[in-house]
């Protein structure tokens, strides 16, 4: 027997430090990740001053500083830096971004006349404006005091025209096209079945739609030809003349003239576009509205599907099934299901939900659609419903395990009290056990939601796309289109980061999208936690 230690610290106390260290490492990594995403994501929309840089080879460039990093191969004690400028004008420069050795920059100035432009095509541009050709043909030179007011007025007018055009071409003509599609399918069917009445009716429908289409085309033409297009003549850094039609301009600002409030307003306007608008330019510009909406709707549907399934299963396992070796095997299998790689669920979803279930639904309910519309599937292809179901299946074990534990944690006294009053087992479960275990069940749903909202791999197989033509929710019956493909923030991050034609332009958007995804998941979880706490408050003080 060893001599008793007279130290006041019991042996083994060192492990406290080890476990504390584990926590610190874990916390450090989480905080590091979040701050990296936050710092990079939140600064994307900020408009800093834009320099004109003179290089030692006589070149000049105008651009917004994008990154600064140590040059590869430079000695560690005397690091040499290089800078990446976003110079814009992709149609002239070939690339929006340019790397420059810091040592080669002779001088940097911030002239007040630099103009930043966000454009519909070819990315942004940083130019020195020369003159404005107004839509009435009048030319205003930069030196004239009326220039800036006239310029912003013309930009606003051109934006209005562009939005009207988008409204006509994309939405209204899109609706006509969708209706036309339906009518054509109907016509083909009628012709095939030789239904004279319907043929006539469908032809009449098509004629009406054709007429409407022509009208909209004419309206669109009128909008574009409503007056001469205003344009801006400017010089780029090399002194080349650039003419930008103002209908191309989404936003224009003088980055070296803005005060802080102006920058905040610009930030707000870009952020609003990011959240509420549709994407442009291969998703590297514009907004994420469809992806936010898709993620939200899919997660909510997943939760609505997985909760009843999981709860019913857990009730059976815990309350009704004969406890024994068979049940143990079932339980182990359910728990193992949680460890199956998510892509496996994607493959299952594609093979079973999409092809078998969706295919059968198409055969049964959309046979005409298949036959007369070139075998275009309705449910037999990826879509919102199948994504929700696949993720529901994937998160099922989480809900089952949480519900079982919650049911087991209901005090025995409550169960006995209910049974002793003559309630049946089902009445006891419904009236006593389920309400009492609701907070625990919701904890499981929260975990399931957190996992489901961030999942991408299986979704790529069962219905998430890079660019969906329409939201899964719109004004046409049945309003919520469970068969439609949709966009998803997680997939958007993958697509921007790895599939984008312009990786430099996509980089800031990757961070911004990631930040948005994290915020969305946090909000969903906070919502669920709020509900859970309200439920918990009802049971507070229960002493058993």
């Amino acid at each position, binding site marked *: 027997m060893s001599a008793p230690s007279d130290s006041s610290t019991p042996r083994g106390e060192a492990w406290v430090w080890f476990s504390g260290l584990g926590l610190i490492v874990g916390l450090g990594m989480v905080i590091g990740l979040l701050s990296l995403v936050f710092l990079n994501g939140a600064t994307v929309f900020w408009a800093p001053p834009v320099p004109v840089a003179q290089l030692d080879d006589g070149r000049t460039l105008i651009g917004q500083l994008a990154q600064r990093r140590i040059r590869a191969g430079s000695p560690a004690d005397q690091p040499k830096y290089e800078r990446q400028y976003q110079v814009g004008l992709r149609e002239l420069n070939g690339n929006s971004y340019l790397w420059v050795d810091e040592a080669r920059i002779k001088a940097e100035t911030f002239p007040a006349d630099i103009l930043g432009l966000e454009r519909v095509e070819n990315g942004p541009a940083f130019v020195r404006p020369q003159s404005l050709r107004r839509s009435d043909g009048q030319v205003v030179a930069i030196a004239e005091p009326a220039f800036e007011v006239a310029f912003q007025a013309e930009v606003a007018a051109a934006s209005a025209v562009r939005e009207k055009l988008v409204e006509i071409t994309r939405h209204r003509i899109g609706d006509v096209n969708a209706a036309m599609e339906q009518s054509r399918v109907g016509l083909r069917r009628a012709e095939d079945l030789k239904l004279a009445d319907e043929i006539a009716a469908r032809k009449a429908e098509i004629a009406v739609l054709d007429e409407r289409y022509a009208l909209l085309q004419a309206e669109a033409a009128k909008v574009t030809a409503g007056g001469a297009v205003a344009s801006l003549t400017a010089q780029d850094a090399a002194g080349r003349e650039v003419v930008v039609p103002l209908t191309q301009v989404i936003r224009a600002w003088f980055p070296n003239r803005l005060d802080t409030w102006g920058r905040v307003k610009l930030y707000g306007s870009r952020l609003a576009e990011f959240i509420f608008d549709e994407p442009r330019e291969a998703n590297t510009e514009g907004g994420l509205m469809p992806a936010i909406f898709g993620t939200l709707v899919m997660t909510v549907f997943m939760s609505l599907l997985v909760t009843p399934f999981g709860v019913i299963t857990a009730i059976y396992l815990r309350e009704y099934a004969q*406890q024994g070796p068979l049940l143990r095997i079932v339980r182990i299998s359910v728990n193992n299901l949680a460890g199956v790689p998510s892509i496996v669920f994607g493959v299952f979803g594609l093979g079973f939900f999409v092809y078998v279930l969706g295919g059968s639904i198409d055969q049964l309910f959309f046979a005409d659609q298949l036959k007369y519309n070139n075998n275009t599937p309705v449910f037999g292809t990826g879509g919102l419903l199948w994504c929700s179901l696949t993720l529901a299946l994937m998160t099922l074990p989480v809900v089952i395990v949480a519900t079982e534990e919650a049911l087991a944690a209901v005090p025995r006294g409550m169960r006995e009290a209910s049974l002793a009053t003559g*309630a049946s087992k089902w009445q006891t479960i419904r009236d006593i056990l389920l309400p009492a275990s609701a907070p625990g069940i919701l904890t499981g749903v929260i975990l399931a939601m957190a996992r489901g909202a961030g999942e991408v791999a299986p979704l790529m197989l069962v219905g998430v796309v890079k660019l969906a033509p329409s939201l899964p929710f719109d004004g046409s019956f049945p309003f919520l289109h469970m068969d439609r493909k949709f966009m998803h923030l997680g997939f958007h991050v993958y697509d921007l980061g790895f599939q984008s034609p312009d990786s430099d332009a996509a980089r800031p958007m990757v961070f911004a999208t990631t930040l948005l995804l994290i915020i969305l998941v946090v909000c969903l979880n906070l919502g669920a936690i709020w509900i859970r706490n309200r439920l918990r408050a009802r049971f507070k003080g229960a002493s058993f």
Partner: protein
Amino acid sequence: MPSLMTPPSTSRIQVRPAAEREGRKDYISIRDYGFWYGQKKALEAISLDIPERQVVAFIGPSGCGKSTLLRNLNRMNDLVDGIRHEGDITINGRSIYDPGLEVISLRRRVGMVFQKSNPFPKSIFENVVYALRVVGVRDRALLEEACETSLRKAALWDEVKDRLDDSALGLSGGQMQRLCIARAIANRPEILLMDEPCSALDPIATGKIEELIHELKEQFTIVIVTHSMQQAARVSDRTAFFYLGKQIEYDTTEKIFMNPSQAQTEAYISGRFG
């Protein structure tokens, strides 16, 4: 009332004279009853008759099987896996193990109050009318009437009549237990089983519940398990003493406490063991 407020004395035990009332003498009849939890025999050769509308107390040291027997009267032990019994228990002549008798309808006739008060996390009103809700009573007026009657019988009405919609979990310990009694009698059972109903209560709350038992006796047959000899003496008409799963003695309370025929009973009652 004053007798209720006197603290239980250990030196002198007050015994109520047995008041024999009209009613069936063998209302609950237990015959040669044995009971096993798995391999462990918990009860052996129990035979006793409980008369209608009387209070019978089961006493004995911990683990003697008195609670097991009580919980078998409404088959609450069915929840336990691996149980087995021999012999029979009849209530009003009908076996509780009759295959034609639903255990649910048995429990509707045999109410139960537990050692720990176990109100549901619902309102006071919903707690009381729970037994009526489960049989499908929807009529609000009927439920309200039953709620008031039960709460009055449980001597709780005056304390809670203004806050029936408050959570039952906000009541005091004694009120909660009386609420549980109100809940147990709301669907008018014939028998009320009480498993150490006062063990977690202070003397004042205990006094109220004992008073209640006297009043409920007019309508219900009551079986009470208690660890308190004083309580058994105060509330019961007949007392059964159990030891190690066996029934040692069963007689009128007066006889058990004044002149027990078994040495073990006397030893237990006088506090020499148990």
